[in-house]
């Protein structure tokens, strides 16, 4: 038992020192930003940074947070949980950050959430996995993004309204894909529906013909897919090879640059969840506020905008998050981890570009499910996605 006791002592001492280190340094309000700048999620991290930097410059010009200038320290998690863990320790112990934001990828966020929470550092997370937010187990984590559970709810409701009662799944084996499958199953179970087939794909799969022939044999009338854009593009191309023609609905991964660039015409009819504010129907234009945001980003980075404009799904939540946080902290004067947590839990609703964010002691997910739409991955317009036709 001796070594266990010693281990506990060392762990406790480490956590206490981490907690102490998280107290704000005088002068600047330091935010550690950890995101994929390389790897499968690179487009999200890159555009999050591009969205964040000009907003912070603007906010600093207006006084920052309680007179402190906001300082951003970026770290690339390389879409890799191990790299993210190392970066988090460095941000907490060496850089003594006041807050950490980022982790667009669920499996990366899952790896770093416990460490950040044990150090009592507020963590603004953007990964969509269900387990990333838990006010009891992860009291310092708050999310400014739609959740996997909300996405599953919207997708299954849409399928139900269309009378598609024989769904099938195709998911990747990461925490992201598994989380999606779990939430879809929960939503289907509420309606006493079971999937007729559930297939998986691996990151290194060069061909998914087998999976799609198996799916076809199960005769589903809708296919739910969950994974990162690059692999979903590979799935779309394999589906095309076997003439799989059922409706395909999936996660927001279908709006990632990897999908748009690689799927080609094979992914034309694949539709995924997206921010309603950045969608339009055939007849209805996108909101003016959305247009203004797109124009702002285009004005800053016009030559670098990619075809898919998955930019938006990365940039807009960050814009909302940093503005809400600054407003909340200026109002409350909060500085320490516990004060920031309390301030966010008691803040009034914040009207962002994407949704109206509301938090509470038991509600650390700020996004409103009603602001999720389903739109085609391959957009007809650069920034605004076309919504799928309304269900009857």
């Amino acid at each position, binding site marked *: 038992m001796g070594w266990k006791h010693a281990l506990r002592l060392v762990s406790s001492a480490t956590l206490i020192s981490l907690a102490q280190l998280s107290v704000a340094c005088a002068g600047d309000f330091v935010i550690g930003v950890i995101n994929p700048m*390389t790897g499968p999620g*690179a487009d999200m991290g890159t555009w999050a940074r591009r969205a964040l930097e000009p907003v912070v410059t603007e906010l600093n010009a207006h006084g920052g947070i309680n007179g402190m200038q906001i300082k951003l320290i970026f770290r690339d998690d390389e879409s890799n949980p191990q790299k993210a863990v190392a970066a988090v320790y460095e941000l907490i112990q060496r850089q003594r950050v006041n807050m950490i934001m980022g982790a667009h990828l669920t499996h990366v966020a899952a790896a770093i959430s416990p460490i950040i929470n044990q150090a009592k550092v507020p963590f603004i997370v953007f990964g969509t996995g269900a387990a990333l937010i838990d006010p009891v187990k992860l009291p310092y984590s708050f999310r400014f993004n739609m959740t996997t559970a909300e996405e599953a709810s919207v997708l299954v409701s849409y399928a139900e309204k269309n009378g598609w009662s024989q769904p099938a799944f195709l998911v990747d084996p990461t925490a992201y894909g598994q989380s999606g499958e779990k939430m879809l199953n929960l939503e289907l179970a509420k309606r006493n529906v079971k999937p007729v087939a559930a297939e998986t794909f691996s990151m290194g799969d060069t061909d*998914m013909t*087998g999976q799609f022939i*198996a799916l076809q044999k199960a005769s589903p009338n809708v296919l739910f897919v969950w994974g990162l854009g690059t692999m979903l*593009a590979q799935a779309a191309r394999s589906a095309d090879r*076997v003439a799989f023609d059922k409706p395909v609905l999936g996660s927001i991964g279908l709006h990632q640059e990897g999908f748009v660039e690689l799927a*080609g015409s094979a992914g034309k009819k694949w539709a995924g969840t997206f921010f309603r504010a950045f969608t339009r129907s055939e007849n209805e234009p996108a909101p003016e506020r959305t247009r203004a945001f797109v124009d702002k980003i285009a004005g800053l980075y016009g030559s670098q905008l990619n075809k898919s404009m998955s930019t938006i799904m990365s940039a807009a939540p960050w814009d909302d998050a940093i503005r809400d946080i600054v407003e909340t902290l200026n109002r409350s004067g909060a500085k320490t981890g516990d004060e920031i947590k309390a301030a966010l839990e008691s803040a009034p609703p914040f009207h962002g570009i994407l949704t109206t964010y509301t938090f509470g002691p038991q509600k650390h997910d700020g996004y409103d499910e009603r602001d999720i739409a389903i739109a085609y991955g391959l957009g007809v317009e650069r920034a605004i996605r076309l919504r799928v036709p309304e269900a009857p």
Partner: protein
Amino acid sequence: MLAEIASVSIAGVAIGSVYALMALAINVVFAARRIVNFAQGELVMLAGLSGITLMTSFNLLYLGAFVIACAAAGIAALAVERVAVRPLSSSEHDIAWILSIVAASIILSNLLLLIFSTDAQRFPSLVGSRAMTFAGVRYVPDQLVAIGGAVAAILVLALIQERTIVGKAMKAVSLDPEMASMLGISVNRYVGGAFALAGGMAGLTAFLVGPLTFVSAQLGFSLTIKGFAAAALGGLGTFRGAIAGGFVIGLTETFVSTYVSSGLKDIVSLVALCVILIFRPYGLVGEPKVVKV
């Protein structure tokens, strides 16, 4: 049902062709130096990414890009041999080469990330990626090109090995490097030649597998594992074994994911590999090594 099985078979043979080429390239090096080139997948990705860049950024024609990409992979393979293999002892019991080649593979992979970024890139198709139907059988022209290209490469390689002085010299080096050296064959030159050949084959593999999937600096390792599994399954060091291993794994993966479960496809092929190696350690086609004492 028959049409469906034919479609699945085409997909399995196409991907098996790629695995077979990987296994053959691994075997070429193994035969020359008794080591496994764990950097083969990275060489494939180097060729693939170079090929895309040449075609899209420099508007080079497909054939020109192919030749340059093969040459680039061949030169990189030679560099791996020169830096990570040649300085090491050639003793069969020396395992330093494992660390050395794995390190070379990691360095190569990171260089690719730095040069080409981590984004997966779509590889242009020579004949078209749209699915077609013939007598109810679905196929993609790229799949037929992959199969045809692999068969042609296998035949050329067989001709080189069996009918040319170079091939015979390589065989001599493989069987007994000391004796070959005494007979005036430059062992180092032939080992280098084997690496360069494996690099050239990496170029071909990239141009065959690229249109079926995409290329990315991060895909090399999984291809190496599949190629190594195919080579080991057929019998490491045997020409026919590499081909058999590649097709067995490709077909097993495709049939298991179609008729059993996609979640089991990798497990089934790797369990099959373990079982075969337990009962036939020299592989499906290999022959037991008999040592006279």
